């Protein structure tokens, strides 16, 4: 049997502080999940159960929320997560070609993570940075306007730093 999941005590202190800002424990659910995911890389079933216990919520409520919001994911993403915007302004300025090019370079399809967990590729809706179209979010960072050359450059930098 797997040992019961233990949240790091450092994080637990941080979470307690967050919960204290809200009128109800449930209201802290999104921030708690956001922090947990930041720390552990995904929302595993173990984390879901832990959070449910912690906020005194039925597990179903936690699961419902995790599945409703697109930023929560159950599987670990790659170290470099490329989220390519595919909405209107980015489409008008050629995101399709950039997405195809990146798929080719990373040898990944939309939604996939490489086996070595180095890269993930997803297409996403408007990231509210249409002035830099075509653009993407690379981990926490907004990058654009993208060209094949700038994509090459980014991949080269990642390679060097690896």
């Amino acid at each position, binding site marked *: 049997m797997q040992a019961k999941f233990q949240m790091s005590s450092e994080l637990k202190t941080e979470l307690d502080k967050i919960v204290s800002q809200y009128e109800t424990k449930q209201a802290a659910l999104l921030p708690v999940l956001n922090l947990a995911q930041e720390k552990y890389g995904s929302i595993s079933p173990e984390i879901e159960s832990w959070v449910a216990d912690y906020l005194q919520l039925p597990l179903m409520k936690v699961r419902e929320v995790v599945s409703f919001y*697109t930023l929560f994911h159950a599987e670990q993403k790659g170290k470099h997560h490329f989220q390519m915007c*595919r909405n209107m302004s980015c*489409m*008008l300025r050629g995101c399709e070609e950039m997405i195809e090019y990146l798929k080719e370079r990373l040898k990944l399809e939309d939604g996939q993570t490489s086996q070595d967990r180095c890269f993930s590729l997803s297409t996403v809706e*408007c990231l*509210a940075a249409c002035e830099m179209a075509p653009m993407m979010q690379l981990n926490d960072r907004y990058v654009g306007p993208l060209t094949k050359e700038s994509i090459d450059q980014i991949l080269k930098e990642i390679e060097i730093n690896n």
Partner: protein
Amino acid sequence: MKSYPKILSKNFEVPHAQHIGVYLSGGGYEAARKVYTSWKPEQLIEEVKKSNLRGLGGAGFSTGMKWAFIPKDSTRPHYVVVNADEGEPGTFKDRYILCKDPHALVEGILIACFAVGSHKAFVYIRGEYVEPIRIFREAVREAHEKGFLGKNVFGTGYEVEIVIHQGAGAYICGEETALLESLEGKKGFPRLKPPFPAVKGVFGCPTVINNVETLACLPPIVNLGAEWFAKLGCEKNGGTRLYSVSGHVNRPGLYELPLGTPLREIIEEHAGGVWKGRQLKAVIPGGISASILRSDEVDIKMDFNSLARVGSMLGSAGVVVMDETTCMVTTLLVAARFFAHESCGQCSPCREGTGWVLKMIERIYEGHGRSQDLDNLLDIGKNMMGNTICAFGDAAPTPVISYITKFRAEFEYHVRHGKCDLEDRSQKSE
């Protein structure tokens, strides 16, 4: 090029304006201090009503009126909730305020809290905004340190706390009641109205929900007066706005211009005109939820009333420009995919309708359209409108109805020939 006063963007080019010292040296927090130390809430609400400030999140509702709906006699706490979800495709203005002038938002929140007797504000920021959240958090910390937030705002004994709440990726949470649900730790299902949030909002308490840009207008209104602000704009539309311009223009970017600025001027002068020397084909004037305008319809003033008169809307002022090479079937596919992806699934007409619409447009796009498809699409669209709990159900069919109606011949060509007439035309001209 015509130039206009910079009100909301005056600090955007100022180095280190994110830091409270720089903000203070430009007269920052004087408006909030004045209000807290010498004004009455009623006076402030009247002033904001007179300024003709309208909600810049999209709906354009009078901010002063909205505040006045907060019951005076309630014993429950009142809340201010800031909508920084910024999800409307084509819109990126709130990100600039959060990143380049975060104290303008903190000051605006302080003023709004005073108006409605609130001691706590929640700022709901979209989850992807990692950097804006970091910058705004730091601004809140600085304001605390100076005693502008906390238990004793400007030494008056009035308490205001700001809680930053990070979203997790759901367009629907920009809709104000879905946002409240999300803030309470639930999935973002919009609520039935009434009761309106002013009566029963977050945690069942009276709540005012305002957009970031709306709140950033408050310090200048207090400093320079309602009449001055009203005159900046046009009739019934006070002030300036941050127009997000993107798509096929030479200079995509954020432009602060008065309400009522002609759309043609925004595109041709400020954004540098249509790129590559091409002709204009169409413009979305107010985010993807707004009815599209053809190139012969852009001689229009960008204010809430003028756009409503021609059946479109100013919305979030996200201006998306399309040149003559744009295939309208492709643009509708992008819009339909977005709405199908983002429908929260609560109401059947929207959940099912957005799915059917996407399937049919995909079919047309792939060259397998059927002759009855276009009329069916219009029917499905009309049946969604007005039949859902929230305005998403009106937004989703708007591109469907407006693109097909205004570019019918292009859609028919696609259905009949299984491809784009633009492709055919460009092949002939080669």
